[in-house]
Each structure stands twice: as C-alpha cells, then as structure tokens.
C-alpha cells in the first residue's frame, strides 16, 4: 500500500497566480440586504481616500481558486505527517461537528454568564480532566497556544517569587535566571526572555538526558525555575526527574512542564507527581485539535495548589446552586493574556477528544504512541541510527543522518525531500539543534503498522538511494507543484504581498 503524497502535482501548470489574477472590475461575490434605514455617510475628515484593492471575483472564482490551493497542500488527512515535537495525529471528524453546534459557535464572548452555562460547563469539565491528567490543581484556558502558556507560567513564577521570596526586599527580581536544557524548543528561551528572565542553558549528558550533576552546579537562589519537557526534546524520559525537580525546589525554584510531549505519558505518569509546579498542554498536539495550517491551537496551563492565586484572571467558579461564573476578582492574578477566554472553539474539540477517549482511551493513546515510535525507530535503525541510543525512546526519536552524510554527501534535508517524492511528509529536520543532521520522528499512535511499514520502507529506500543514486535525493522533490524553493532569494528580495517588490536593503 502506498500512502501517496497526495497533492496536485502535474498536468497544466498548477499555479494560476493569485486570486488577484482572477479579479475583474465590477465582479463581486458579496451581497447584503438592501439598506432599510436612512443612509448615513462618513463624517468629513474620516473618509478613506484610496479604496483598498481587494480582488473582485464571483463566488465560483473563490471556490475554484481556494479549492485548487487546498489540493496543493498536504495535511494529516492526506498522509502520515511524522513531524517530531508536533504530534500530528489524526483529528477525529466528530470534533468538527460538535464545534459547529450553533450554541457553541454563535456564543458572544461577553454574554452574561447565565446564558452560556453550556460552554462554561464544558470548560469546567475540561479543566478538571486536564488537571487530573497532569496532576495539577487548577488550570487556565486562556492561552491560545503553548508559547502563550509558557509566558503565563513564567509570569506566574515571577509573581510567586516576588510574593514569597525571602529576598523580596530586593524587589522580587533576585531570581533572574531560568534554566533550560540546551536542546529545548525555541519558544522556551524566547518566553523566558520576554518574561524578563535570563536564560541559563543546562547541558545534556551523553545519554541525551539532563546532566543532573551539571544542573546541581547551576542551581542557586537566583534561579526562578526550570523549564523541561519530559520525555525531553530527544524523546527520552528523564529518569532522574524527581532529583531534578527536588534540586529546584531545594533552592525555592519552580519547575515548568512544557507539555509538548505529554502524548507519551498519559495515564502512565503525571507531571504533578514528578514534582512539576506548572504545566502547559498543547491541545493541538496531545488532544488532536486540528493544526489549521499553523494554528489555531490552545495552551491551557495547570498549576499546583500554591500557584492557583496567580493564574490569569478570570477563572471559573461554581456557585452553590451549581451555576458557573467567571471569577474576575483575583487580586494576585497575573492578569489577562488574551482578549477574551482563549480559543474556546478549539477547546470544544479538545473536550471531544479527551472525553471521547476517556481514562482508558488516553492511556492507550500513550501506549500506542510509544509503541509506534519504538517500532519505527527499530525499523529505521539500520540506516538511520538513533542519535542517543543509550536511552530507550518514548513517543518520538531523533535519528542522525550524519553517518549517511559522511558516506554519501546526502544531508537530512535531501532525505526529507526525497521522502516527499516517495509519498510522505518528512519528519522534523535540523531540530533539536544539538544533534547534527537531526531527523526527529514522531509517528503518533494513529498510524497503523501498515502505514509505519510503508513509511519505513520509504525511509530505507531513500537511504539506499543515497548510495546508489544520490541525485534522486539532491534533485528531490520532483513530484510537487514547485520544486526546491530559493529561500535566500525570498529573504533578500522581499516580496511579501502582491503588487509590491521591495529591493534588497
């Protein structure tokens, strides 16, 4: 069985230009009811001088144009998408159905709480479930993605320390450092900096785990906390996690769990039980809310009891009569992170996933996710050895193309592009940055053994071809609407909108 790289590829030139090229003066798709009140015009001085040049097209033009473009895109619905760290699992269709229920879809964010008890109940139950899964006390649903969740967590760290720290006299700014493993995802250091902390890098040991001894050296009373995924960015479980969190706690620091890899441990182990204080969840990873071509996601953040007061406001409260309401009166809260209540439409989908799977299903998800990764890792090992073979991978693994490159000159990028021609979306490449020629592969639990086998064969074939016909890899892809694109030129000769080209600066 071939999964196919199901994007439109040949025949008449795929590109027929932008929607602007379908534009024709006077054509129009939109229509409104005739104005049934006296017409009013814009007060003098406020009029727009130059009308925006939007496309002028009929509905049929829109439909053909965007349908064609959609066919030039590869999604989970077209084939396997083993992007490491991204958990590109199958997105059950029922989630789309329930999110479209008018009661959810047409609720205004500023309606009286009494009129949206259904949504509030959904959010409440979801919060309870997420807290149970992660071992936290309460959670905020506001962050629209993981990175924003990180920000929320770090600002809570900050607020917590300025409240509790013995060194409060020093303005609560004594704890300036946040520790992050060298392999961490880019959002971690970026968030740390934006939250007003300094990044201190924690080295890995040669098994790919946190070097606990080195960590010991780094930990002092200037440390606000540590951010970690577990399994870590290499897909390996930090076995000494209790020591790690203990170390931090011993100096009054907090430990943040980046939930990107939660898919590996549901029902098996909980960040709270490992000693983490703050946890974010990427619903678009673990709970299969569709990635939307880059977003939206949702990044709920759970905290242990001692941090509850600092959660972003408002949070949900249940009155004695069972009515839910937003509790806005939260003195110690870090405040608001989003214009309204977060990506509620995404959270409905997460609810569907969480309660559709339930306790048994979520546990099975993690079991299969880890099984699939281990199986695929074993199948690929002959050609693509694990970068850190000494610790067993969890739900994803990092292989290195380094030795293949030395032998054949073929790089990870070439393997990735050849996989496209063989019908697959490549894995993450060149991340984590600490591994040379890294390929980070996360098959997820929703791929069947058949699919894993077919995918493995494609990887192995590419490795073979690297020896026998490397040009197939260097020239790849050749089956796509466009071939390798000149990224340097894109950055040099910026053309970021139609009509205008900005000269190199």
């Amino acid at each position, binding site marked *: 069985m071939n999964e196919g790289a199901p994007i439109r590829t040949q025949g008449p030139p795929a590109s027929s230009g932008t929607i602007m090229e379908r534009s024709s003066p006077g054509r129009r798709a939109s229509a409104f009811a005739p104005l049934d009140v006296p017409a009013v015009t814009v007060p003098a001085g406020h009029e*727009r*001088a130059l009308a*925006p040049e939007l496309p002028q097209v009929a509905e049929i033009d829109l439909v053909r144009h965007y349908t064609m473009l959609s066919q030039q*895109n590869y999604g989970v619905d077209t084939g396997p998408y083993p992007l490491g760290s991204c958990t590109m699992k199958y997105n059950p269709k029922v989630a789309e159905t329930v999110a479209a229920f008018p009661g959810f879809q047409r609720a205004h964010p500023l309606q009286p709480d009494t009129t949206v008890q259904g949504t509030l109940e959904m959010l409440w139950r979801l919060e309870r479930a997420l807290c149970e899964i992660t071992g936290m006390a309460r959670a905020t649903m506001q962050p629209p993605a993981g990175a924003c969740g990180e920000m929320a967590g770090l600002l809570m760290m900050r607020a917590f320390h300025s409240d509790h720290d013995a060194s409060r006299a020093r303005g609560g700014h004594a704890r300036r450092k946040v520790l992050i493993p060298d392999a961490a995802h880019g959002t971690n250091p*970026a968030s740390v900096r934006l939250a007003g902390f300094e990044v201190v890098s924690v080295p890995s040991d040669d098994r790919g785990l946190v070097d606990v001894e080195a960590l010991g050296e780094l930990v002092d009373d200037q440390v606000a906390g540590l951010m970690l995924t577990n399994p870590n960015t290499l897909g390996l479980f930090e076995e000494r996690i209790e020591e790690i969190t203990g170390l931090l706690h011993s100096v009054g620091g907090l430990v943040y769990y980046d939930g990107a890899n939660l898919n590996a441990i549901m029902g098996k182990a909980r960040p709270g039980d490992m000693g983490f204080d703050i946890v974010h969840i990427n619903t678009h990873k673990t709970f299969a809310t569709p990635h939307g*071509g880059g977003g939206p996601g949702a990044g709920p953040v759970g905290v242990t009891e001692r941090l509850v007061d600092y959660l972003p406001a408002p949070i949900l409260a249940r009155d004695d009569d069972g009515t839910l309401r937003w509790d806005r009166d939260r003195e110690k809260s870090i405040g608001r992170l989003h214009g*309204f209540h977060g990506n509620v439409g995404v959270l409905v989908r997460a609810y569907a996933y969480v309660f559709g799977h339930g306790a048994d299903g979520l546990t099975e998800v993690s*079991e299969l996710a880890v099984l699939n990764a281990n199986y695929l890792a074993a199948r690929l090992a002959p050609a693509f050895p694990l970068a850190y073979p000494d610790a067993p991978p969890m739900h994803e693994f990092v292989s290195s193309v380094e030795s293949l490159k030395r032998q054949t000159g073929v790089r990870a990028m070439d393997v990735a592009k050849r996989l496209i021609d063989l019908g697959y979306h490549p894995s993450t490449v060149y991340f984590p940055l600490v591994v040379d020629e890294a390929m980070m592969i996360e098959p997820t639990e929703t791929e069947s053994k058949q699919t894993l086998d077919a995918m493995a064969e494609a990887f192995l074939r590419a490795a073979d071809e690297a020896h026998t016909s490397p040009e197939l890899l260097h020239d790849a892809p050749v089956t796509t609407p466009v071939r390798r694109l000149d990224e340097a030129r894109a950055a040099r000769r910026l053309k*970021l909108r139609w009509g205008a080209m900005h000269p190199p600066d």
Partner: protein
Amino acid sequence: MLAAAGRSSIDDLFAQIPGSVRLARPLAMPDGVSEMELAADLRDLARRNRSADDLVCFAGGGAYDHYVPSVVWALAGRSELYTSYTPYQPELSQGVLQILFEYQSMVCELTGLEVSNASLYDGATALVEAVHMTIGRGRSRVLVSRGVDPRAVQALRTAGRGTGYEPESFEGEPQVSDDVAAVVVQHPNVYGVLEPVRERFDAAHAGGATAIQIFDPLSLGVLASPGELGADIAVGEGQGLGNHLSYGGPYLGIIAGRMADVRKLPGRIVGETVDVDGRTGYVLTLQAREQHIRRDKANSNICTNQTLMAIAAAVYLAWLGPEGLAELGGQCLSKAAYAAQALTKIPGVSLLSGEPFFKEFTLRLPRSAVEVIDAMVERGFLAGVAMPQAGDDVLVVALTERRSRDEIDGYVVAMEEVLAS
C-alpha cells in the same frame, strides 16, 4: 511490533519511568465513549447556551455578529488545509503559503501599510506584540489612549510585567517625551467613537514615538486607513472577517507595519520566490527573526498562530471585494445612527459617547446595564456590552450589517419595556 522493537510488553516500553512517579491507578475520569454518546453530550451542553443563534445580537466590544458567508468555511474547512501545520516543507504546503501571501496582501491593502505578518493570536495580543516592537533604544514608556479596550490594556499590563513597562493612559493630547516608545490609539474607540487620530499620531511622531492604531478591519471600506492616518503599526481583531463568534476564540490578530520595521515584526511571514526551475512559489521567510532560530533573542515567542483564521479572512475579504467592504461599512454606519437615534428618544437614555461613531455607540441608561442586559435576554436580545469602568449604567451597543430595521425596532421597543418596568 513489540518484538520488532525489542520490547517484551507494553509495560516494558514505560520501564524507564521510575516507579515512584508511575501512576498506579487509572485516571480519575470516565472511560471513553462512542462518538454517538459524545455528540449527544456536547449537543446538550451547546443547548444550554443561548447564543446569537437565537438571541438577536447587539453585543460588540471587540467581537461582532457580522455575517459569515457559507463559502468561507466551505473553503477554509478543506481538510488538506486545516489538518496541516506550519509550512516547514514548502513544496507540500503551497496551498497554505499562497493563501497566507494573499492574506498579507489584502491586509496591506486594507490598512494602507506596507507589510503584514501571517497572523497573531487575537487583537489584544497583537497590541502586545506591536508595543513590544517599539520598546528599546531608551524608550520604554507606553501611552495608551483612554479609548482603548480595557481588555487589551489588561493584556498589555500583563505582558509589560515581563518586558518591563507599565501602560500609562492618556486622554486628549499625549505628552510624548523622549522616553516614550509608543502611543496607542483605538479608532473607532471602545465607545465606538471616531478619534482625532491624525493629531494624536502627529504628537507621537513629534516626540519620536511609534504610532500604533487599533483598527476595526470592517470599517476600512469607509474610514480612512491606518496608513492614511499616519499609523506606523496597525493592529486589529480579525474575528469579523469570516470567523465565528465562538465565545471569544479562535480569533485573528492582525498586525501590519512599515517595511523598515519588517525585521521586528513578530510571527510567520510568507514571501514569494522561485524554485530551481524558475517557477513562482511561496516560503516562510525572514525566519531569522523567530524563536526557533533566534531563541532568547527573538522579539516574540509565537509559534503556533491563527493561520486558519487568516485563511478564512482571506476568503472573506475576497468575497467582500472593495465594493462589498464599502457597502458593509455604510450599512454599519447607517444602522448604528438609526438605532442610536431611536434609543436616545427613550426617556432617561442618552448618548454617553459623543459622535461621530461607526458601528458602536455608548449609552447612559437610567438603570444598571447588567440588569438591563439580563432583562433583554428574556426578550430575545443580547442588548450590548456593559462597561463598568465607565459606570454601572453604561451600555455599549453594536450594529452590524446583519441587523435589520425590524430587529432594531424590536430592540427599541423591548428596551422601552425593560426601562419602564
């Protein structure tokens, strides 16, 4: 599979997790249910809401009941788009990339500015990102007009704690000293009123600060664009552009600015280029700005964004076209004027906000706004949004192209009843 993986059992796969942190019990939540049961459960929850589907919606405050034409989600809902992720492999992602390029182009046209990114989380966080672009070189004060949505100001205050500023509010002319990084004006403002933006921005520029406008994209068929008004950065909430109300999200943060500032712009940016055969294609560009490359030196930590909402916005804007945008603006303007006139004839009701306004206006009521809103729900209306910071008796009312004269007249009658009772 276990055998091929060299493992003896499922438990073996988790052997590296120390027993002390293993969860020894099942998760304390119900076991899984079938789709049929799940859908029934969520249908029941959805029915406990009374939404704009059965209440006639005059609520605004940043989220509006503009009509979402069927074509928008017939296209944005194509699964090749919505089940993909950030286009790291451009050859497999020309669909999303080209649509984002079109989105950026249309945002530039709308705002009269030179460059747009590919989306931020929402309007409030877009303001945070915009302000962040301006901090530095000895400038770290942020002056925020009193007409800015308090929720956006709250988001700014939260973020400022990290970055090290505290938004200061101003009314009238801003005092722009040389430590001021940004002057933020919302136009139309949170009361619906059109502000003297040009003067404010002139003051900002005179003091060397960056002029940031919070705009309503649906106003830009009739109102002067941020570019025309002198804004250096424009941010806005794009929900009204084909995105559903969805109780506040997923929405769309729009940001546009000057080409000179492109390297400070947060988030993904798509650029046009060519492939090895010279064919036009699209890629993520200027990635060196972003967290995955610049890490702690990055301007922004955004990774997952709101691409799908930007796709919907692109389809919606192309659906509207320039004439549709202008007609829609005219309808909002006219209906708001009509409603304001009728409502202020009710004894005790007056305009709190002055004129001119666009699609929203603010009333002072003879009673608590919250009570009035509740009473209006009984009569089938979402009457508007209370604004406690301006007074308990203050109500902001929003009119979109979707409200008919009959609905407005019905609203006025209901309001009369409520206030009389």
